[in-house]
C-alpha cells in the first residue's frame, strides 16, 4: 500500500500556487483600480473570494472521497478525505477571518447572520467535529467508516442550512465572480483563485501522503524481531 515512488508534484503545485498568489496579490494591491464605493477595503476581495471558492471545493472533494471510501473501502480515499477535511477546515477558518475583516468597515459589524457566513461557520464546526472524531477513534477501520459517514451527513446539511438561514435573514452582497465585477478586477481575481487552488491541491496531496504513511504504520504487522523477543 505505501507508495514508494515519492513524486515532487505536490511541491510543484505549492510553488506554482505561491507564484500565482504573489503576482495576483501584487496586481490586486497596486495595479487594479480601487472600488468606487468601498475604496481600498474592497481589495480584500482578491483573497476572500478565491478562499471561498476553494474552501467549498475542498469540502466537496472531502465528500466525494468519503463516498468513494464507503463504496470501495480503499485506504487511499480515507487518506484523501482526512487531508481534504483538514485543508477545508483551515480555508473555512481563514474565510471567516477575512470576512470579519471586510465586514467591519463596510457593514459596520464583525459578524452578520447572513446565509453564506452562517453556512460557512456551521460547516467549519461540523468538519472540525469530524476531525475531533478521528482523533478519538483508535481502530483505523472504524475511524475511516465513521468519519466518512459523518462527512456525508454533514455535507448533505449544507443546502438545508443555507436555505434555512436565507429565509431567516440576509445582507450579503451578491457573490463576486469575474461575471459580476468590472474587467479591471478580473486578472488578479483569476490569478489568486488559481493560486489558492494550486496551493490547496499541493497541501491536500502532501497531507494525504502523511495520512497514508501513518495508516501504513498503524496497520503494519509488528517487526519480526519484536515477535522473536516475545517468543
Amino acid at each position, binding site marked *: 500500500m505505501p507508495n514508494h515512488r515519492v513524486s515532487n508534484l505536490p511541491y510543484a503545485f505549492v510553488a506554482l500556487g505561491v507564484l500565482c498568489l504573489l503576482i495576483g496579490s501584487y496586481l490586486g494591491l497596486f495595479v487594479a483600480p480601487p472600488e468606487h464605493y468601498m475604496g481600498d477595503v474592497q481589495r480584500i476581495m482578491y483573497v476572500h473570494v478565491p478562499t471561498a471558492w476553494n474552501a467549498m471545493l475542498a469540502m466537496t472533494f472531502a465528500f466525494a472521497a468519503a463516498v468513494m471510501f*464507503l463504496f470501495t473501502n480503499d485506504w487511499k480515499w480515507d487518506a484523501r478525505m482526512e487531508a481534504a477535511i483538514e485543508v477545508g477546515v483551515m480555508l473555512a477558518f481563514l474565510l471567516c477571518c477575512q470576512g470579519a475583516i471586510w465586514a467591519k468597515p463596510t457593514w459596520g459589524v464583525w459578524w452578520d447572520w447572513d446565509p453564506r457566513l*452562517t453556512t460557512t461557520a*456551521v*460547516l467549519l*464546526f*461540523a468538519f472540525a*467535529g*469530524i476531525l*475531533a*472524531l478521528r482523533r*478519538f*477513534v483508535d481502530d483505523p*477501520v*472504524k475511524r475511516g*467508516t*465513521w468519519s466518512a*459517514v*459523518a462527512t*456525508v*451527513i*454533514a455535507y*448533505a*446539511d449544507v443546502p*438545508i*442550512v443555507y*436555505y*434555512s*438561514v436565507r*429565509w*431567516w435573514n440576509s445582507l450579503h452582497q451578491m457573490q463576486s465572480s469575474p461575471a459580476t465585477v468590472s474587467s479591471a478586477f478580473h486578472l488578479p481575481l483569476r490569478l489568486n483563485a488559481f493560486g489558492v487552488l494550486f496551493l490547496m491541491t499541493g497541501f491536500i496531496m502532501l497531507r494525504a501522503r502523511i495520512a497514508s504513511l501513518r495508516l501504513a504504520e498503524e496497520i503494519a504487522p509488528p517487526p519480526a524481531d519484536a515477535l522473536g523477543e516475545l517468543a
Partner: protein
Amino acid sequence: MIAALRKELLLQWRTRAQAVAVFVFGATALLLFSFAIGPNAAALREYAAGFLWLALLLSSTLTLSESFHAEMENSALEGLLLIPASPRALYYGKAVANAIQLIVLGIALVPVMIVLYDAGTMRLPTLLLIIILGGAGLSAPGTLYAAMTSQIRAKQMLLPLLLFPLIVPVLLAAVKATSLAILGDPMEQGRAWLLLLVAFNGIYWSLCGLLFARVVED
C-alpha cells in the same frame, strides 16, 4: 423493526427514572435561561420559543448518549447484529423510540415554559406538530451519532460536537415556528418553517437509515 421498537420502549419504561431526571434537567435549564434575560416579562415571552428548544436540545444529548448504554454492556450490540434482523430495522426502532422520548419530553417542558415565561398559546395542535417534527429531526441524526460515540472514549463531549452544527436548521425552523405559534402569525409564515422541518426529517431519516449498517457492522 416493530420488535426492535417494542424492546426500546420497554427498556425506556423500565428506566423511567432516567427520563424524569432528564425532564428535571430541561426544566432547570429553562429556569436558568430566564436569569440570562432578567425579570423582563415581555422579553422572556419573546424568547420563550428559543429557550424551549435550547432546553430540549441540551436534554436530548443526555437522552441520546444514554440510548446505546444497554447495547454497550456485555457487547449486546454484537448479539443484536447476529439475530436475523437487518441493522436498518434496529436503527429505525431505536430512532423512533428516541424520537418518542424527545417528543414526550418536549410536551412536558411546554407547561414549564408557559408558567415561567407567560408564553401561553391557543395553537396547541400546531405546537404539538412542531414538537413532533422537531423531536424526530433531532433523533434521526442523533441516534446515528450516538451509535458511533457510545463506542469511544470522550463520548459525552463528541456527541454534541458532531450533532449541534448539524441540527442548526431544525433549531432555526422549530424556534421560528414555535415563536410564531406563541406570538401570533399574521403573515402565515409558520407553514414554510414546518415544511423545512418535514424536508429535514425526510432527508435524514432516509440517509441515516442507509448509513447505519456501515456504522455498526465495521
